[in-house]
């Protein structure tokens, strides 16, 4: 299994080397070996006696994250789909993509995606699962944007990225909660602890987060909008990612965790409710599309909704039908995408309004399309596999022996009707798809080239898939015991044996539901043009695309408005924010802290010289604010500095006084030198409100600092260390000047870095002045 995961990644590294010879041999041929050999390896596991097994490789043992791989029936089913359809898609792409395309990029992304999908389905560790989950999002983003010169591709890629990554992150939240609740990172161990999870208070969150992850990935309502836009990708990509593999990752997640989550009624309500809603909405909207791949995209959405709904029912038959339909859907939808690609390739358009009457030009393609679409529609013919899963679906939707209460009861009653409604529209778009393209009148003028049959290489893959459709249709029990039963068992936890029959007799309700679908569907399909104006009423202008666009546009617009609002570029504003933030935080803390006391145990007495000096400094400070002359402001500021040095003298700090005196002189001199070159201060035209606001902030800030100083002086918790310095200055430092001993001896490191700071400042000033360049000079 480890090989299966990493083989594609390793080969991906060699793609750039191989693609150098792409003009002699198409790169795809080298790639083809990989999925095929993995398919051969996996197919050997299939058998009645298959039993799950696991392998563990240490990855981050200290965080209990191991590379746990687990292969059970469900993983095997998905692994076979990924490798099998992967092989066919690579084969198809060899003929689809011309050698002049960037083949290296294409196959690199595709192999990356394949690796990621194998990782998702094989991993048993939630974090490994998440890692690969995001890798699928990333590689699908790259694949959708493959033709990145097109605007639509970029839009679709971004949209799918945003939606699936949003869901992926939600899923990570759910997985983290699961890890916290169960104290393990292995999914199998989590399943064995399902009672703990059920009873934990976080269960609701776990449920919601995992659902968000699964619904966004599997394009469930209302997150389905990214899938139709992802149709800008090359058709092999659409066939692979958006029909068979990636969109089923959400289904896989729900199936994988359903032993844990299905205990709750909410699981039924949410999964089945949204599933059936997606089924109806997707099939209803598919009829409205004009693009072949658009129809198929909405069709995929609705089929995924159907599988999701069946997983939500959680009954034995429903789980079996879900597994069966995963297989069936992959076969017919893969072939239909390839057919759409062929039509696009041979006629140059995918617009169904321009197509018509292609049957005589492309008989093989038309036959393939016939099988695909009729199987999709669930037409009751014994060689179409879609019919079996559709009938199983109806059978499951009837929800016999299913006891629920409250809202779930209402849901139980309406689900069969909704199922029939969705299937009728499925029938309509299937007929529209096949008859609109291949029958009717041939519109010669609309097409640029004369259509002809596709080369045989391009036809091989859809032929194989259609043969699969027919084989499953003819022998529906072929894989039952050896394959599907194992997958169903790993979802439901118990053995499920189901014998699929074509004919159930006249007294089976699903038969009449199917007949109703065929009859009503045929009538609606025949009269489609008459009632298609209903789409102007519902959905009309209602669309989740609008919601998405609105969200993206408004988020960009408002974040720009907000950023422009506060990032004004004005230094004044930023200083204001900083001061206000400090004020709010400090006053808030002062307010919340209750044990603030003001005590004055050892306040010194204030002498007249002190008061005179301080009074002088206050007057000078106030005067600095009100002067309109720069030079005067500097000189008055100097008064404050000299006053401070007098205070140092009074408080017996001769070193400080000396330093302050000289530094004050130097700074005043420097200011004078610099400010001589500046223009005169002008009267600033500020509104009274601004002045008032600034004054308030300043006064509050001063008050705050005063409070902080008083409070911190009032609460001395420990003895100061200064006594130690006074005592040991002579004995340890050998000096009587304690300040100097502290500076050069006790705390010499501070001094060392202070002179370093000064040195840097000096060099900085020198650099700024000497090395500046005049404008225009380089």
């Amino acid at each position, binding site marked *: 299994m480890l090989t299966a995961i990493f083989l594609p990644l390793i080969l991906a590294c060699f793609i750039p080397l191989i693609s150098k010879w792409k003009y002699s041999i198409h790169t795809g041929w080298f790639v083809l070996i990989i999925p095929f050999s993995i398919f051969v390896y996996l197919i050997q596991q299939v058998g009645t006696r298959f039993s799950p097994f696991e392998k563990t490789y240490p990855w981050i043992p200290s965080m209990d994250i191991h590379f746990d791989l687990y292969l059970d029936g469900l993983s095997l089913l998905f692994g076979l789909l990924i490798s099998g359809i992967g092989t066919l898609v690579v084969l198809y792409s060899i003929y689809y993509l011309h050698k002049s395309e960037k083949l290296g990029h294409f196959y690199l992304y595709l192999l990356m995606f394949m690796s990621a999908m194998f990782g998702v389905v094989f991993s048993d560790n939630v974090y490994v699962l998440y890692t690969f989950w995001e890798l699928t999002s990333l590689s699908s983003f790259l694949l959708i944007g493959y033709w990145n010169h097109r605007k639509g591709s970029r839009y679709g890629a971004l949209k799918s990225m945003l939606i699936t990554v949003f869901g992926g992150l939600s899923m990570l939240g759910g997985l983290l909660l699961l890890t916290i609740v169960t104290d393990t990172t292995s999914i199998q161990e989590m399943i064995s602890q399902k009672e703990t999870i059920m009873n934990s208070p976080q269960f609701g969150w776990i449920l919601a987060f995992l659902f968000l992850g699964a619904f966004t990935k599997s394009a469930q309502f209302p997150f389905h909008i990214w899938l139709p836009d992802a149709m800008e990708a090359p058709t092999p990509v659409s066939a692979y990612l958006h029909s068979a593999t990636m969109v089923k990752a959400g289904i896989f997640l729900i199936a994988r965790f359903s032993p844990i989550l299905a205990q709750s009624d909410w699981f039924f309500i949410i999964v089945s409710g949204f599933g059936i809603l997606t089924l109806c909405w997707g099939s209803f909207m598919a009829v409205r599309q004009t693009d072949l791949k658009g129809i198929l995209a909405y069709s995929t959405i609705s089929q995924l909704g159907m599988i999701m709904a069946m997983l939500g029912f959680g009954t034995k038959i429903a789980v079996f039908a879900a597994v069966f339909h995963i297989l069936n859907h992959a076969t017919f939808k893969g072939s239909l995408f390839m057919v759409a690609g062929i039509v696009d390739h041979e006629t140059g358009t995918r617009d169904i309004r321009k197509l018509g009457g292609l049957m005589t030009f492309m008989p093989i393609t038309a036959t393939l399309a016939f099988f695909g679409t009729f199987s999709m529609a669930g037409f009751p013919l014994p060689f179409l596999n879609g019919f079996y899963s559709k009938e199983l679906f109806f059978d499951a939707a009837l929800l016999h022996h299913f006891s629920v209460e409250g809202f779930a009861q209402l849901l139980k009653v309406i689900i069969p009707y909704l199922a029939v409604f969705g299937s009728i529209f499925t029938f309509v778009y299937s007929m529209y798809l096949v008859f609109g393209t291949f029958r009717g009148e041939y519109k010669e003028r609309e097409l640029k080239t004369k259509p002809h049959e596709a080369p045989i290489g391009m036809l091989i893959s859809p032929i194989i898939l259609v043969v699969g459709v027919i084989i499953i249709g003819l022998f529906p029990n072929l894989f039952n015991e050896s394959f599907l039963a194992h997958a169903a068992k790993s979802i439901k936890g118990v053995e499920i044996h189901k014998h699929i029959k074509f004919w159930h007799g006249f007294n089976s309700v699903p038969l009449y539901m199917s007949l109703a679908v065929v009859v009503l569907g045929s009538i609606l399909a025949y009269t489609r043009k008459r009632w298609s104006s209903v789409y102007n009423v519902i959905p009309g202008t209602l669309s989740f695309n609008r919601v998405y666009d609105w969200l993206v546009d408004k988020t960009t617009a408002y974040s720009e408005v907000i950023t422009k609002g506060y990032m004004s570029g004005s230094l004044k504003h930023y200083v204001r924010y900083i001061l206000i933030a400090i004020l709010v935080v400090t006053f808030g803390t002062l307010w919340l802290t209750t044990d603030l006391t003001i005590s004055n145990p050892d306040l010194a007495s204030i002498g007249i010289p002190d008061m005179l000096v301080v009074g002088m400094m206050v007057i000078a400070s106030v005067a600095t604010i009100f002067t309109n002359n720069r030079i005067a402001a500097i000189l008055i500021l100097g008064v404050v500095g000299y006053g401070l040095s007098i205070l140092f003298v009074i408080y017996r700090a001769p070193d400080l006084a*000396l*330093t302050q005196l000289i530094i004050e002189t130097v700074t005043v001199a420097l200011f004078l*030198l610099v400010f001589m070159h500046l223009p005169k201060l002008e009267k600033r035209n500020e509104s009274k409100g601004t002045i008032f606001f600034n004054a308030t902030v300043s006064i509050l800030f001063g008050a705050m600092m005063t409070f902080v100083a008083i409070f911190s002086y009032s609460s001395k918790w420990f003895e100061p260390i200064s006594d130690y310095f006074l005592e040991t200055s002579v004995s340890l430092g050998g*000096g009587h000047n304690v300040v*100097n*001993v502290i500076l050069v*001896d006790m705390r010499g490191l501070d*001094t*060392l870095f202070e*002179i370093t700071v000064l040195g840097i400042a000096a060099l900085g000033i020198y650099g700024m002045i000497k090395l500046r360049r005049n404008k225009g000079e380089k």
Partner: protein
Amino acid sequence: MRTNDVILRTTTTLIAFILLAFSVYLFLAGHNAPGGGFIGGLMTAAAIILMYMTYGIESIRKIIPVNFRSIVPVGLLIAVLSGAGSFLFGEPFLSQTFAHLHHVPIFGEMELATAMLFDLGVYVTVVGITLTIILTIANDQ
């Protein structure tokens, strides 16, 4: 364009020497009396700036043929090396010690402290920094 400033020049010769002597005193006395490398350095710089104001940059360059920028790293190097010197004796960085010397010719009783070497680094750095800043700004057009 300089006016005839004989008085300034004459007093400067006197005052500059007094200032320099005072700065050296401040520097040497720092360990036991107010002063030290920082104030001493500033005072020396003040003396040189006074000479600059009186005689101009050319004369200063002639009298003190030192690039003030390059003595900044010299001072820092002295400070760091005096700190690193304690490694030779297996002591932590910046460990200082001192010794009293008796019967020294001329001085008699005197104290020698390794902290003085560190202070010398501070002194040299401060002189270099102050002169670099002020002369750079003052000589800018």
